[in-house]
């Protein structure tokens, strides 16, 4: 059963002054389902809108349009101004930076107690201890201030705070990227355990594809505010369909893979992704029509879909060969900046 | 022409401590005309000197008051010329008073001014009014041939004035200084012994006094604290001051429209508690003297009835007697040594005084201390003068330190203190007699005073008024205001002094012209 359904979610940010309101579309028409007991990884490069999406779901930003359905109910319509306690009780978030997400003036106990009390749970010592145990922390840390903890421990406290509420959905925005390399796996393992033990539904946002592959059941790839590919985590990683996904994958350093780095190939991918006009796969269609989802396979009971004209049924996939564009230059990055 | 200049051409340097900067406005009708406009540029018909009570004919050589007191005729001096060379004549006087009434009002008693001949002007009144002589005689006169052509005389700045005075030519006008040079066609050229006058602007007493004690200016009218030490002691040979107490009487006024201050016994008892000697010595730096119960300033010494002054004791400081008087009048000591009113309420009062008058605040503070000695609690309130005056005008105050009217005769003083005609009900705006005291007996005496031109009769009426004042105690007189004035004779000599009081040492009054025409530069 799907718990949180996102339909056509769009978020614009106003930029500029009162006199010249321009808008930047950070998230554009995202459809995504978060199912219980599953981890959905959201990957994409910096600025692709991942955090914005998460913040919309956490109701920290108000989406410009679209729907967020919690158990089938469009919460954006029923709770216009602010998210209700009920919503907050079901959807919780873990932030990227555990240094920033724990108020330095409070003790660990405070974070957990507030979360419990606000959602009508008794905040007795036993409950606090249980929570600490669940995230793998010693209970004597309850009296510590955040600065006395290591990054990994802090992130565990942040997770415990989210858990205290008793949520069904956990949004985790790059929960390990600020952590020290040596403790990342520990936090990933914790999340994995929570999914298995609590049956939590999780949105795991990252640009570390390796960890997405490690943790997630489902993977969605985000590019420029839109989801471009999705499906079973392994399927997406092992057989990326969208050029952007391939670009991302090729960028990950992986000594084990040893495929080497083909500059020309990557330049082609980049050009394709960043500059639709020079898309080698399509004759300008990309520029004029919005691509729709095409299913390219089925893995682990989920469809593997991609949004790229390349996979439109009318086309013969076999005819298209991945070819670098001649004029592709690294300069393309510049136009994106 | 700096300090120590004795070339003979040195300028008489006068500081204005109350003007940080000058604006070139020599319009005498403007309340804010540049200094010396009415003193050195324009001249009056006669000069009354409060220091010795004498009158000096000036633009008029003589005057006669009609016996019924309903008119006065001035005979103008011949040969007087305006500084542009045009002759001075009766029509100038007529025009001046027309302008004055139109622009600034006042002179309600004046019906008409007529030029009987080029040298004779008669002022006709709508009632017998002898005190008018000084008001009219002391008024500056402007040339008709200039002022009749000015479109808006009220707002004209008259940048290049034409007058009959000794120093009319404006030179080097700058925002902090300017010079007045000799009038080329002055009617008594022999008396233009000084080369000119220089005015300096100062942002306050402090900076002006600094310049003065440093010997950079000749003649100041600013208040100088401890003048003996800070000025005279620096050079006793040349540095002098003379503060005749001929200014307006400064009173402590109790609002007689308010109980219990309507009780003369209370007023007198409170007055007895006040240590005027200390006020004069400490608050007024020893520059004034205690008042007596005639209420008259030293400008009216010739009018004063010594027997009246000696007959009463309510202006002599005696705390014990004051306490007894209070007891006797029914203001008994209550709990904590505080006196109560007859109705049992505590006897407390506010003393209002404008914040700008720091010396008067000290006066109020001493009164407060004195009252505390007899069990009366006073609070000194010192908001801005505008707020104080507005409470005076509407009669909402308890008590306050206030000036009094100061004319050439005691007439104005007593009318302002006791005439019922000047009393306005509480809430209505009064411009004098803020203390709202009126005595019909006083009305009769005042009218009688104005109706006669005979000095003897006037003296008699004044005596009766003094008696009445001593009996009524409409206000509590404190001390006569000193006319500040200090000078150095390093560069100029011929100053008025206590021994030769031909004028006061004021450089902004009608007698100033007397000084200007008496001074001689020190040469060599």
């Amino acid at each position, binding site marked *: 059963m799907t718990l949180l359904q996102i339909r056509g979610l769009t978020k614009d940010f106003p930029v*500029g*002054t*009162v*006199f*010249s309101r321009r808008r930047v579309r950070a998230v554009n028409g995202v459809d995504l389902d978060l199912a219980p007991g599953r981890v959905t990884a959201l990957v994409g490069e910096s600025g692709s809108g991942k955090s914005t999406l998460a913040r919309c779901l956490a109701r920290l930003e108000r989406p410009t349009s679209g729907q967020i359905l919690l158990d089938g109910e469009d919460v954006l319509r029923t709770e216009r101004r602010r998210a209700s306690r009920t919503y907050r009780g079901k959807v919780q978030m873990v932030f990227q930076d555990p240094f920033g997400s724990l108020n330095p003036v409070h003790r660990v106990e405070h974070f957990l107690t507030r979360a419990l009390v606000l959602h009508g749970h008794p905040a007795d010592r036993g409950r606090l201890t249980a929570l600490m145990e669940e995230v793998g922390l010693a209970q004597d840390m309850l009296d510590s201030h955040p600065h006395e903890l290591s990054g990994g421990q802090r992130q565990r406290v942040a997770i415990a705070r989210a858990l205290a509420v008793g949520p069904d959905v956990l949004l985790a925005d790059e929960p390990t990227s600020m952590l020290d390399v040596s403790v990342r796996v520990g936090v990933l393992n914790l999340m994995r355990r929570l999914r298995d033990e609590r049956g939590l539904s999780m949105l795991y946002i990252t640009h570390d594809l390796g960890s997405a592959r490690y943790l997630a059941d489902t993977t969605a790839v985000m590019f420029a505010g839109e989801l471009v590919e999705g499906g079973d985590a392994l399927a997406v990683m092992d057989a990326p369909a969208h050029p952007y996904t391939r670009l991302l994958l090729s960028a990950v350093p992986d000594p084990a893979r040893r495929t080497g780095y083909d500059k020309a190939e990557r330049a082609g991918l980049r050009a394709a992704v960043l500059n639709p006009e020079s898309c080698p796969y399509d004759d300008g269609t990309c520029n004029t029509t919005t691509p729709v989802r095409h299913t390219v396979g089925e893995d682990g009971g989920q469809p593997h879909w991609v949004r790229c004209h390349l996979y439109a049924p009318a086309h013969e996939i076999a005819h298209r060969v991945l070819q670098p564009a001649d004029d592709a230059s690294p300069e393309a990055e510049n136009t994106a900046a | *022409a*700096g300090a120590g200049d004795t070339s003979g051409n040195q300028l008489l340097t006068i500081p204005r401590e109350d003007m*940080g*900067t000058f*604006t070139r*406005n020599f*319009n005498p009708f*403007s*309340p*804010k005309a540049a200094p010396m406009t009415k003193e050195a540029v324009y001249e009056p018909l006669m000069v009354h000197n409060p220091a010795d009570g004498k009158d000096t004919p000036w633009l008029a050589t003589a005057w006669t008051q009609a016996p019924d007191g309903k008119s006065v005729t001035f005979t103008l001096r011949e040969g007087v010329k305006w500084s542009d060379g045009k002759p001075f004549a009766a029509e100038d006087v007529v025009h001046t008073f027309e302008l004055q009434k139109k*622009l*600034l*009002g*006042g002179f*309600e008693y004046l019906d008409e001014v007529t030029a009987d001949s080029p040298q004779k002007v008669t002022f006709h009144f709508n009632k017998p009014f002898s005190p008018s002589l000084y008001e009219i005689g002391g008024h500056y006169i402007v040339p008709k041939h200039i002022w009749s052509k000015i479109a808006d005389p*009220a*707002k*004209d*700045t008259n940048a290049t004035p034409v007058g009959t005075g000794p120093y009319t030519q404006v030179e*080097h006008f*700058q*925002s*902090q*200084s300017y010079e007045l040079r000799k009038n080329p066609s002055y009617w008594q050229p022999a008396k233009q012994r000084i080369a000119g006058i*220089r005015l*300096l*602007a*100062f*942002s*306050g007493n*402090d*900076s*002006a006094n*600094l*310049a003065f004690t*440093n010997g950079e200016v000749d003649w100041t009218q600013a208040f100088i604290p401890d003048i003996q030490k800070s000025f005279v002691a620096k050079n006793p040979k040349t540095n002098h001051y003379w503060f005749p107490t001929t*200014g*307006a009487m400064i009173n402590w006024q109790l609002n007689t429209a308010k109980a219990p201050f309507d009780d003369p016994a209370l007023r007198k008892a409170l007055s007895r508690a006040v240590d005027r000697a200390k006020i004069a010595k400490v608050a007024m730096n020893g520059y004034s003297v205690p008042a007596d119960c005639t209420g008259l300033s030293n400008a009216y010494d010739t009018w004063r009835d010594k027997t009246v002054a000696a007959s009463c004791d309510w202006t002599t400081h005696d705390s014990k007697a004051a306490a007894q008087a209070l007891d006797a009048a029914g203001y008994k000591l209550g709990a904590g040594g505080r006196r109560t009113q007859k109705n049992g309420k505590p006897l407390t009062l506010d003393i209002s005084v*404008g914040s*700008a008058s720091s010396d008067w605040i000290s006066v109020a503070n001493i009164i407060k201390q004195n009252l505390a000695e007899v069990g009366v609690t006073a609070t000194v309130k010192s908001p*801005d*003068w*505008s*707020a*104080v*005056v*507005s409470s005076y*005008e509407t009669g909402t105050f308890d008590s306050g330190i206030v*000036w*009094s*009217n*100061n004319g050439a005769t005691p007439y104005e003083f007593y009318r302002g203190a006791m005439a019922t005609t000047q009393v306005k009900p509480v809430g209505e705006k009064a*411009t*004098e007699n803020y203390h709202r005291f009126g005595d019909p007996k006083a009305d009769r005496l005042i009218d009688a005073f104005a109706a006669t031109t005979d000095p003897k009769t006037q003296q008699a009426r004044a005596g009766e008024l003094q008696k009445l004042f001593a009996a009524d105690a409409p206000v509590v007189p404190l001390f006569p*205001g000193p006319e500040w004035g200090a000078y150095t004779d390093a560069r100029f000599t011929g100053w008025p002094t206590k021994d030769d009081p031909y004028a006061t040492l004021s450089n902004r009054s009608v007698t100033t012209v007397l000084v200007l025409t008496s001074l001689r530069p020190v040469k060599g």
Partner: protein
Amino acid sequence: MRLVLRNLGFYLIAFWASVTLNFLLPRFMPGDPVSRMFAQAQGTMQPDQIAQLQKLFGLDDRPLWRQYVDYLHSVATGDLGISISRFPTPVSEVIGSQIGWTLLLGLTALLVAALVGNLLGVLAAWRRGGILDSALPPLLIFVGSFPYFWLAMGALYLFGVTLGWFPLRHAYDVGLEPAFDAAFLGNVATHLVLPALTIVLVSIGGWMLGMRNTMIATAAEDYVTMAEAKGLSPARIMFRYAARNALLPSVTNFGMALGFMVGGALLTEVVFAYPGIGYQLLASVQALDYPLMQGIFLTITAAVLLANFVVDLIHVRLDPRVRVR
């Protein structure tokens, strides 16, 4: 450019707000200038002249909104009315004859304080632990703790009266004709020394500390370390890399300081009898001369707003980052 327009918009609104404030304030004040004048004349003015004077000064009893509209209109047309305490001189004339001196005093003091203070701050931060860094700040803080006027009076009596090194008052010697020659300008300069010095003394500590603190922060920036790694000379690193950046907050402060400067100048002008509008403002307040008071207030506000606008422009010039934003 957009930024500039936006700021301009803000400054206009701010100006309007202060104009309105300015309009309202005197109207809540008890008393009027004529009774005030009367009180100060203390018996030498005839009571019966009051009504006439009130008419003369144009104190009116029209409805408030009407007055407001007229007021806005006259402000817009630059007509500030006629001064009461200087009747009948127009307010604009009174201000015009004095604002130059205030600007001279204020700007000189501000520039000297800011320049020297910032320079000291740069040097102190650059030589951490040196004399400049350890001994000077507490000393300057101490000096800066004295009230303006107290220091001014102290300096006046010490250097002016007792030692006689500097003139005691005014912007130039009496008797001098203003001219653009060495003699006159030199005279003006000697008159400027003491008043400006006291303002500088009081305010220099703030500049120095502010600069020192930002410099210390800036010196730890990567680009400064990088400049060092590049082997650049210390002077180039200090000024071109560190100070150039640390200066930016100072520039903003400069605009703000203009307002304070006028305030500081007020007391100093009073002590030194300097013919500026600070003193004039005090005088107009004491005389309840609303038109002049309002005129001066508006002029100061406009000047400060204008200065801040200019500072904004300078800031845009100095900091390329705000140009596009």
